[in-house]
């Protein structure tokens, strides 16, 4: 299995470097995080894009494309350097791929000022969503706060009134709790900011038990989330105090790793594997055929980003006319795997958010099943401040 993964990885790298890309292929620059703990995020985003391109035989919207990919190592300075290399040396006009908000902060302003277009497949920080918005900056994923506003709406809809909120003590964590409280109509009886790299939550479990809330909201992305959920179960809290989560805490990798420690949790999402639309069925089938690892929502965002670009290329034929490309992107004339999709005033998504249940999948593991629509045509709270 590991060998197969390795070969697939090698094949993907081979695809990147292959001379098949014709002379007139349009270059798309991907700056993403492939090393360290968050490496799987960037990997899935990139592979989602590669999948969309492979499904069109090396093209997007009928235009041959070449995907340039580099690892930013989660360092803002490196992200900026790679962007300059793409734009300056390779003449790239269209960039994408950044996973983290701090890399975006150092990189995106430089890209858009250079007259190139940046389409974000993941990070949607507030400082680029409101007054800092730009006509050359598009976000396909979500505005960061919306993730947690969905969780707040879920807690309200499920009828909870006393919430306990936890998040790491950094900006994204604070945004998470603020976002949750914005849409949660009950009372927040306790808030804990955990340490940045904290992986042992025993102290927090005790405090949750002592506070006796009727719901817990926690934002611990990736590996932290795995540790948190497992310890929640080990502390005997699972099944006693319900939990509402925003999307980064329950991606498919986290679910696979925590297994039955996630049973009964209320998750929220803008995409799920079981969405019943043509585009999604096609995407899921193709992914499962190509890769033997779970589909995360990061992969869906990478795929959607590529499909959005394809829809624009189908109209413009490439990147030669940036104004036309921008107009074409703004139309968002593509079938998103998440169903309805449109851009708001700040070129961030206006989309639906869903409540998911985590249930047994019958093979000893767990899966997320869509339960109900929480928010319809939901944008974000910064769009009004954006003047374009």
């Amino acid at each position, binding site marked *: 299995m590991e060998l197969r993964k390795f070969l697939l990885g090698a094949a993907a790298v081979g695809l990147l470097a292959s001379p098949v890309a014709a002379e007139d292929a349009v270059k798309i620059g991907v700056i993403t995080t492939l090393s360290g703990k968050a490496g799987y995020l960037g990997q899935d985003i990139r592979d989602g894009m590669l999948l969309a391109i492979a499904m069109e035989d090396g093209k997007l919207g009928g235009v041959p494309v070449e995907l340039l990919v580099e690892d930013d190592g989660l360092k803002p300075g490196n992200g900026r350097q790679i962007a300059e290399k793409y734009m300056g040396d390779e003449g790239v006009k269209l960039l994408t791929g950044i996973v983290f908000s701090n890399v975006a902060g150092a990189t995106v302003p430089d890209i858009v000022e250079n007259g190139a277009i940046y389409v974000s497949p993941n990070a949607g920080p507030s400082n680029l969503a409101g007054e800092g918005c730009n006509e050359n900056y598009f976000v396909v994923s979500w505005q960061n706060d919306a993730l947690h506003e969905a969780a707040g709406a879920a807690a309200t809809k499920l009828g909870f009134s006393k919430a306990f909120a936890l998040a790491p003590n950094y900006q994204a964590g604070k945004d998470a709790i603020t976002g949750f409280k914005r849409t949660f109509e009950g009372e927040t009886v306790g808030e804990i900011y955990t340490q940045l790299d904290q992986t042992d939550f*025993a102290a927090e479990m005790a405090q949750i038990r002592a506070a006796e809330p009727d719901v817990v909201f926690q934002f611990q992305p990736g590996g932290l989330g795995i540790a948190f959920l497992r310890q929640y179960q080990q502390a005997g809290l699972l099944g006693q105090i319900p939990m509402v989560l925003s999307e980064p805490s329950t991606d498919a990798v986290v679910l696979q790793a925590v297994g039955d420690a996630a049973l009964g949790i209320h998750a929220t999402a803008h995409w799920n594997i079981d969405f019943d639309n043509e585009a999604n069925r096609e995407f899921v089938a193709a992914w499962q055929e190509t890769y033997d690892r779970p589909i995360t929502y990061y992969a869906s965002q990478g795929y959607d980003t590529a499909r959005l670009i394809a829809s624009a290329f189908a109209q413009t034929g490439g990147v030669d006319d940036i104004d036309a490309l921008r107009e074409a992107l703004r139309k968002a004339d593509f079938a998103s795997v998440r169903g309805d999709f449109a851009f708001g005033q700040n070129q961030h998504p206006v989309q639906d958010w869903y409540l998911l249940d985590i249930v047994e999948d019958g093979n000893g593991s767990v899966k997320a099943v869509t339960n109900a629509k929480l928010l319809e045509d939901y944008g974000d709270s910064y769009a009004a401040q954006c003047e374009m």
Partner: protein
Amino acid sequence: MILVLEQILNGLQYGVMLFLLAAGLTLIFGIMGVINLAHGSLYMIGAFAGTWVAAHTGSFWLGLPVALTAAAVAGLLIEMLVVRRLYERDHLDQVLATFALILLFNELIVLLFGRQPIFTPLPELFSGSVQLFEGFPYPPYRLLIIATGLLVALGLWLLINRTRIGMLVRAGSTNRDMVRALGVDIRMLYTIVFGLGALLAGLAGYMAGPILAVQVGMGEQILLATFVVVVIGGVGSIRGAFVAGLALGVVDTAMRAFLPGFFRTFMEPAAADNLGAGIASMGIYLLMAIVLLIRPKGLFAPGA
């Protein structure tokens, strides 16, 4: 009251974890004078090797020897191929070399296991929670970790105070050149100490597996806290590592648990949470700075 008791147990559990890592590091540091940044990588190697086996065989106990062996072998390889050539060199060259090893190991793990975290369930016997007494449930696995840590501490104490190797280790951490002058095969001693340190790091990594996420970069996360323990305890002192590890574990846990509440008694809740969390995250560094300003060589420095 129960809350305080529970937090103390939590602190002890974190503390013995730190001790397992710090014990090896402090010996390597104290006896060989090597700053081994790659100690966290040994922790990661133990966690990955053991967890992978446990996940594929379904048995937690089968993973354990694999974790220990993998970490020890990796440690011996590091010692023989890299560190051995650097004993006579500057501390700084050791820093550069072991930093390079971190990069190497992280990327090798990605190539071997992929980028997704891997995991193993708790052993049957220790899953769920037990009632320590009425109204006080506690995860038994954490009790197992505490017990393991205490056993290792006892074993190390016996090893160091009751055996010939231990005598050499004690002598080595106080006066390295003297041991060499006595005609002892210092190379052999170094290799043994390095292997032992690696073994303990692997044990810590594997024990942490079912609680935390086994993922690339997990070693660097705990490396700094381990160094703090070593320095507070006094470089080269197992006893120091034990005391400092447990103390740091309890203090860190207590600060996280009780500081925000303490500030809330006289501050606005939001500001109190912020300040409390902020100070708690600086906590171990603050503690180290204070200890070093009062006792510049740490609490139990040998030969001080």
